[in-house]
């Protein structure tokens, strides 16, 4: 992707990523985590802020650091890195709050306009459908095209 993004660090297995958001509120450490679900090969994607004093990760915090687009682009970049290492994996991103749903939609729509490398489905009313930018979904499922 040609959009600006933050440099990424990851664990050896590339299940956990970290980057540093730099904005109007200063420096915020972000953690992106791919958690295995009950189904082999399907991972849950989520991200949050790392508290540098306690080491705890908060995924409900709204940072308002003024760099949301760059943050989302960086989160999307982790999908590239993750699916490069695990090409057959499917990634589920649940939108628990309206804010998070909107964030994911923004990220995914941008991501789809930038690349044709992924397939994306939206979760709505207990079913899956092709991702449509104008629809409010409860979650998203992403996989790398073969």
């Amino acid at each position, binding site marked *: 992707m040609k959009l600006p993004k933050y440099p990424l660090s990851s*664990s*050896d297995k590339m299940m956990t990523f970290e980057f540093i958001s730099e904005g109007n509120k200063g420096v915020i450490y972000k*953690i992106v985590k791919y958690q295995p679900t009950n189904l082999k090969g399907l991972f849950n994607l989520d991200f949050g802020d790392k508290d540098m004093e306690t080491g705890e990760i908060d995924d409900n915090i709204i940072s308002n650091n003024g760099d949301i687009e760059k943050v989302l682009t960086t989160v999307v970049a982790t999908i590239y890195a993750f699916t490069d290492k695990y090409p057959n994996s499917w990634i589920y991103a649940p939108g628990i709050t309206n804010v998070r749903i909107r964030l994911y939609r923004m990220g995914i729509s941008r991501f789809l306009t930038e690349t044709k490398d992924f397939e994306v489905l939206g979760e709505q009313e207990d079913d899956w459908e092709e991702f449509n930018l104008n629809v409010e979904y409860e979650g998203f499922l992403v996989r790398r095209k073969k």
Partner: protein
Amino acid sequence: MKIKEILKDRKIPIVTIKKELNQYDDKTLFPVKLEKANEMLKNIGLPKQWTKAKSE
């Protein structure tokens, strides 16, 4: 093309390995979201659009 431009155009990002992050790999950092994912799998299941193609 300058190296900076080549790096900017890369789709797959350059990732630095940071050993400290290994501690998070086996931890469930976001239990609510994971529960939601497992609940979705139980209730909705996988998309027919993809599983059908997989089994063919």
